[in-house]
């Protein structure tokens, strides 16, 4: 773990600590269990998706359709469970759908060779539209299955379920990107796809895997969101993709590919979420929730550049 923390993670870590200290002094409520829980809960949905996005960006790709897909997932999961009365079937439906979307994104990128920024932007439009083709009306929880409510709203040992789910997924991705061969393939592909391919790595396969992984993670986050809202809501998770990408970039993952860090991503999200939370704690107008992250993003990346400049 320590090994995976590189210089810019330490920078972010300090930013994070300073924020926390400042807020704790301003308002002791900040480090109340309840507040920490609410920060972590709202972080977890972003994080789960961000894990996938980090891997995608590392391999030099991006997925703008995550937000649209997420709200589609909330609708599907709620509807299928309402109809079938089975949570399992609901999940299966969701993951099949996400698998399908991930594959399409992957194929459009690798077979049609469309730049992923554009391909997934188009997919975003398609999903935003077709979710209403699927159902104009929001889908409400009529199945009232306690377990489903538990996923988003439940607690285990005072820890919110979403956080536990996130913590369960987290280690896989830290280890994956840093210590497995496939993790290294993603880095190689993002850094120099020709060299990777000439080393016998099947670029297309791994890029598709990247897109599918991201979509499936969106599935998980979508289910959590649906349970949290207790509704399948079209048009929810608006602007989600920008927040995820901003967080990942803030974490120090390069948009050009070739270098990515899960730990950085986690810190990036925590920083953004602590800011959101702090702004409400301090009771200053919520509009700052837009300004501050923007500034921090630029500054953090600037420092990261300075660091890199010193290295070489």
């Amino acid at each position, binding site marked *: 773990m320590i090994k995976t923390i590189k210089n810019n993670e330490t920078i972010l870590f300090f930013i994070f600590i300073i924020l926390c200290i400042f807020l704790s002094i301003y*308002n002791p*409520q900040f480090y*109340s269990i*309840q*507040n920490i*829980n*609410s*920060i972590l*809960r*709202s972080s977890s949905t972003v994080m789960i998706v961000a894990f996938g996005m980090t891997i995608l960006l590392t391999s030099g790709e991006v997925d703008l359709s995550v937000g649209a897909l997420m709200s589609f997932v909330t609708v599907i999961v709620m509807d299928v469970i*309402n109809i079938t009365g089975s949570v399992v079937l609901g999940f299966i439906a969701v993951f099949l759908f996400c698998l399908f979307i991930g594959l399409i994104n992957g194929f459009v990128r690798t077979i049609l060779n469309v730049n992923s920024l554009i391909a997934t932007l188009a997919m975003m439009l398609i999903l935003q539209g077709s979710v*209403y083709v699927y159902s*104009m*009306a*929001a889908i*409400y*929880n*009529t199945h009232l299955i306690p377990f489903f409510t538990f996923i*988003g*709203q439940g*607690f285990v040992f005072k820890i*919110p379920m979403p956080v536990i789910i996130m913590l369960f997924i987290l280690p896989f991705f830290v280890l994956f990107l840093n210590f497995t061969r496939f993790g290294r393939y993603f880095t190689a592909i993002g850094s120099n796809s020709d060299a990777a391919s000439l080393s016998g790595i099947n670029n297309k396969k791994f890029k598709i895997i990247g897109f599918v992984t991201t979509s499936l993670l969106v599935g998980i986050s979508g289910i959590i*969101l649906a349970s*949290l*809202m*207790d*509704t399948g*809501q*079209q*048009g*929810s*998770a*608006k602007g989600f993709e920008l927040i995820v990408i901003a967080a990942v970039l803030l974490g120090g993952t390069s948009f050009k590919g070739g270098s990515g860090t899960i730990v950085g991503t986690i810190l990036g999200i925590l920083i953004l979420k602590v800011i*959101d*939370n702090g702004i*409400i*704690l301090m009771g200053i107008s*919520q509009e700052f929730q837009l300004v501050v992250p923007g500034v921090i993003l630029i500054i953090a990346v600037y420092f990261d550049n300075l660091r890199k400049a010193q290295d070489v």
Partner: protein
Amino acid sequence: MKIISIFLSLLITIIFSLSVQANPKRIGYIVNYGTHEWYQNVIFGLQSRADELGIEFEVMDANLDVNKQTQQAEDFMTKGVDVLIMTPVNEEGVVPILKKAKAEGMPVVLEGNPAKGMTTLFAICDYDAGYKAGDEVGRILVSRGVKEARVMDVGLPLLSATVLRSLGFMEAIATHVSATKVHELDGSGMIDSSVEVASAALAKDSNINVIYGINDGSALGGLQAWRASGLSEKDLIVAGTGAEGLAFLNELTKEGTPYLVEAAMFPEGVGYTGMNLAVDLFNGVDVPKHKVTPTLALTVNNYASYYDFDKAAQKRAINFANVAGIPTEDKCTKYAEDL
């Protein structure tokens, strides 16, 4: 105002000289956010009335894009509908459209929000709707022997209408018990962002006994945040606004839900009234500047007389007659100007 009346009388004479059959043939509606449940029900109301009158009714959805709204207005004028009904994306965005329409001689009816240069508007009274809900909540608090209302207001500063609702709600409660607004939040009218901001607010201070949402999404978002924070629902009262769709009915009819009051705005009724207004305007009947549509504080006891709700099939059917029977104000207690 003078110009308008002159222009109107002109219009009327023209129309009468042209059309033997009084009713307009085609009416267009530009909705600000057509995928939203509330507006789907408004459209349903408009459509039902249009069908009764045998009017061809077309809808375009600006989808919260002020620019697109302007384009669609132009498109409708090109299509040459007889009357244009609009729900402005926000107050100022439509002013040039109204100017253009005037030049075109096309009658325009607004829904929801007033705008400079408009002829007529049909809308609920936001302040009064909020007030009725607050009044009901106040009574419940008194009956429970609660001395102070500590309110979390899941609001939406984006529209003056929603600000008025919060205002009415608070002022009404204050007539019964001492009222404190502990949190004033921007849930942007969406359930998911409402959950976000509400849970953060509750973490800061969860000593709350009333949650008010300026629409059903906000109210439910507040309630979900409360539940997700693992707080007891025993002494809580949740009040929503709009009776937009099925959401509040589902919650209201749950066993032991804290969701007790809904400031109902009967969107279908709004649409129904609006269509009548459009026809009147077209026929040159003297229309009021603001046609107020009925609002009422719904509870689990009285909702059935306005909506018959089939929970299993997730369907609701409005009782137009009963809604029409609700006594309505001639003008609202407070308007956006009063803010």
